[in-house]
Structure formats: C-alpha cells, structure tokens
C-alpha cells in the first residue's frame, strides 16, 4: 500500500503576549492509502490544529507534511475538509452547493453530482436550499461536496459533534459505507471513543499540552462492527486507559 499522508516532525506554536502556547510537539504520523485513521484526545491537544495544518489552511508550522508525493504548502482539492458545521453556501441549492465552482452544465460534473447525491441518500432534495435541510442532511451535502473533488485524503473535524445521537449514529454508518465503496483515505478528529472504534482502522490517541501522540491503536475488528460486542468494548477500554493515563510529571493547577 502506498503512503497517502506523511507527517514528519511537525511542531506548532500559537504566539501570544507571554511567548506562545506550544500546541503540537514533534509529531510523526503516517497514513496509508485507504486507511481510516481517527485522532482522539482531550480538548486542547491540538488535534483540530493538526487537521488545519494538513489542509493547508495554516502554514505557520515547523516540520513537513506531505500528501502523496507533494509537500503541503496551501489548501488544495486533493485534501477534502468536512467541518463541524456544514458550511454550505446558503444561497445555493443542494446540487449547486456540491458543484461549487464547477458547472453543472458540464455532463461529467452533472453525472458525478447525481451519483454523489444518491450516495449520500439525498435524492429528491437536489433543488432544496440549506435552510430547508436538517443538520444531518446538511452535513451529508458537505460530504458529497468534498467527495466530488476526488480528494486523496478526506479530513473530518468532529463532523458529527453538533448532531443528536440518532443522526450521529446514522451518519457514522453512512460515512463507513462511503469509505468502503470509495476507498477514500480518511482522517477523522473526534472526541467520541465509540465513533473512533466503530469507524477506524487505527486510532491515534493524543496527549495535551503540548500535543503529542501517546499511542496508536490498530483496530483489527472486521466490519460491520457492533458497538455492544465484547471485542468492541475491549478496544474501547484500551483507548480509554490511554486517555486516562496521567503523565508522571504533576499537572499544574493554576487557575
């Protein structure tokens, strides 16, 4: 398998009056093509920052990030991005949102858009405006919009965090189906352990202040996975233990 994403010694500091906050500290991570990697960790561990660096939305960091053979210098369509909010353009219909700056009059774009609308199960809503959609539906449009550009890597930043439990479970399933059908490499940032075990081929557990990788847990369970199974619960426990494990140095409780 070829490497889809290579992160090499990446460090990032946010500058402030007192010098700066060290959010990422010499991070190394390799993601193979077709892998589904989840990044999990306490808030403030820099997981979302990492995703923005990979996307090229922030290029103020040390180290190297490469997608395929190309080093990342800015945003590009080879990295799709799903945000926590759907971020659809409110003045465009569903199909036009998916097409974006591509013309629906192009028969190739047209057929791909139709295919994606079917894939995310939104048939009949092509001409609807975002305000007419539920949160879950909007997020599915956002997924279709990202997939239209055939990204090498799809980056997902807590995409289902703002949804209710039912919709979330439903969308996790939908995302899994898309991953199986399209073989798109995916990197998912989440704080939901169940979500990470349910979807991923490996889970990266991060530590906060400064953000470091604490453990990489390969999840070698066959799909489809059942959340109630014993093996699932065992993986859940392993990740929970990694997350709970306190570092030897004392925490500073300055408030």
């Amino acid at each position, binding site marked *: 398998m070829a490497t889809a994403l290579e992160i090499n010694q990446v460090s990032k500091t946010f500058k402030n009056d007192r010098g700066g906050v060290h959010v990422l500290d010499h991070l190394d991570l390799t993601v193979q093509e077709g892998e589904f990697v989840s990044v999990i960790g306490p808030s403030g561990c820099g997981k979302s920052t990492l995703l923005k660096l990979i*996307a090229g*939305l922030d290029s103020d960091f040390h180290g190297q990030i490469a997608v395929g053979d190309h080093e990342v210098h*800015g*945003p*590009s*369509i080879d*990295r*799709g*991005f799903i*945000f926590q*909010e759907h*971020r659809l*353009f*409110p*003045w*465009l219909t569903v199909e036009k949102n998916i097409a*974006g*700056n591509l013309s629906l009059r192009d028969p190739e774009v047209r057929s791909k858009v139709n295919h994606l609308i079917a894939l995310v199960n939104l048939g009949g809503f092509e001409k609807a*405006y*975002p*305000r007419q959609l539920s949160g879950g539906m909007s997020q599915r449009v956002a997924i279709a*919009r990202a997939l239209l*550009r055939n990204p090498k890597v799809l980056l997902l930043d807590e995409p289902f965090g703002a949804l209710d439990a039912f919709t979330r479970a439903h969308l996790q399933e939908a995302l899994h189906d898309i991953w199986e059908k399209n073989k798109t490499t995916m990197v998912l940032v989440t704080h939901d352990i169940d979500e990470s075990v349910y979807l991923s081929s490996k889970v990266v557990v991060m530590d906060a202040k400064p953000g470091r990788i604490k453990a990489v847990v390969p999840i070698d369970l066959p799909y489809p996975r059942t959340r109630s199974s014993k093996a699932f619960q065992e993986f859940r426990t392993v990740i929970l233990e990694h997350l709970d494990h306190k570092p030897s140095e004392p925490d500073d409780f300055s408030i």
Partner: protein
Amino acid sequence: MTTITLAENKENTLKRKKRSWDRGLALFRALFLPVVALLVWEVLTRLGALPSLLFSSPSLILTRAVNLISTGKLWEHMEISLFRALLGFLLGGGLGLAFGIIVGMNRKSEQYINPSFQMIRTIPLLAITPLFILWFGFGELSKILLISLGSFFPLYLQAFLGIRNIDNKLFEVARIMEYTRLQQITKLMIPSALPNILLGVRLSLSVAWMCLVAAELLGADKGIGYMIQDARSFMQTDTVFVGIIIFALAGKLSDSFVRVLEEKLLRWQDSFKA
C-alpha cells in the same frame, strides 16, 4: 368518510370566502381615510371654503392630468426626467457598488478611501449644488452628476457592509475548493452580500429621485421638476399636484421593482419564505 370530506370541503370553502371577505374589509379600511379626505377637499373647494386657486381640487387635478397626458406634454417632461434619474443612478450606483466591493475586500484600500468618502457623505447635497452649476453649467451634466453623487453613497455603504459581513468560514471552504480570486468575488462575495446590495439599490433609487427634483427645481427648461416650478409661477396649482403625484408614483414603482427583484433573488433567505 365521504360525508366527512364533503363537510370539510364545505367548511374550507366557507373559510376561503371568509378570508377573501376579511381581505376586502382590510382594503376598505385602508382606503377609508384617503377617500373621505378627497371628498371633503372636493366639497370644500366647490363650496368656496378653500380658494381653488391655491388648493385646487381633486376633480381639477384629474382634468389637468388628462389634459397633460393627451397633449403629450407630460410625457415630454417625464422622458427627460426619467433619462436623468436613470443615467445618474446607473453612474453613481454602479460606481458605489464597485467601490463598496473593492473597499470591502481590501483593508488597505479601506484605510485610504473610506475616511474621505465618509466625510463627503455628510455634506448636504443642496450645499454642493451651486458648485456643480458653476463647474458644469445648467446643462444635463450638472444634473446627472448631482444625481449620481447622491445615489453613490447608499450603494457604496451597503455593498461595503455586505462584503464585511461575509462569514469568514465560507472563505475557508472556498480556499479548500480552490476557488480562483475571481470566483471568490463572483461566487462567494457578491451572492453573499446580495441582501445588502439590493437594499443599497433601493436606497440609491429613492435618493436619485430626490436629487432629480432638487436638480430640476434649481434650473432646468424641461422635466417634471421644471414643470412644477413653472406651474407655480403661473399659479397653476393643479399642475403642481400632478407633478407631485408623478414623483410619488415613480418612487413607489421603482421601489416595488426592487422588491420583486429581492423576492426573486433572495428566495434562499429565511425571511423570504413568503
């Protein structure tokens, strides 16, 4: 089952009848005061309680209007007024829109341009009019420039505001999808700022009408404003009223036109569900 449906049908028809009756009643109530006022006006002038030379009367105004229309005089004045207002609006509004977008997009140009524009904006237009006449004469140029100066600012301000209010998160999306700079303007900034831009168009149009009157009252040999001024000096009060009514109608019509445009273009907004 059928009987219920029939009963429901009957009820629905009754409801619909009731609703159209309500609407008719509302219209009647809205028209009540104006109609009474017109009647009182007419009666008072006929009785001689109001001097018809100064106050005219609804019937006199109507007769005058018919006369002005049939002789083609009204159209002669209206043609030139429309031409001035439209050209002034297109020139001033167009520039306002362009500057609003540029200044909205770019902080540096905001710092260079915006303070001066804000300063000029506060000057009453009537105060500048004498200068315009000195510089550009009594001809069409001074009038059109005065109208464009007036209609420049509402569109400039609204376009600027609209661009500034765009959600920065959408720019991130556009960058990720590799929108070119031009696509960011045409496919993100302008549609997103459209509610403000259309409001600017409405405000600019109404200012254009006002400036038109000012320009034509100050010195012209044609146009509705001139018609009013000319009629005043001959004490033709009814013609003055016809002119005022024409301005009111034109303002209302242009405003309705933009409203229709808003309803068509802003269907995506929550507030335009109707």
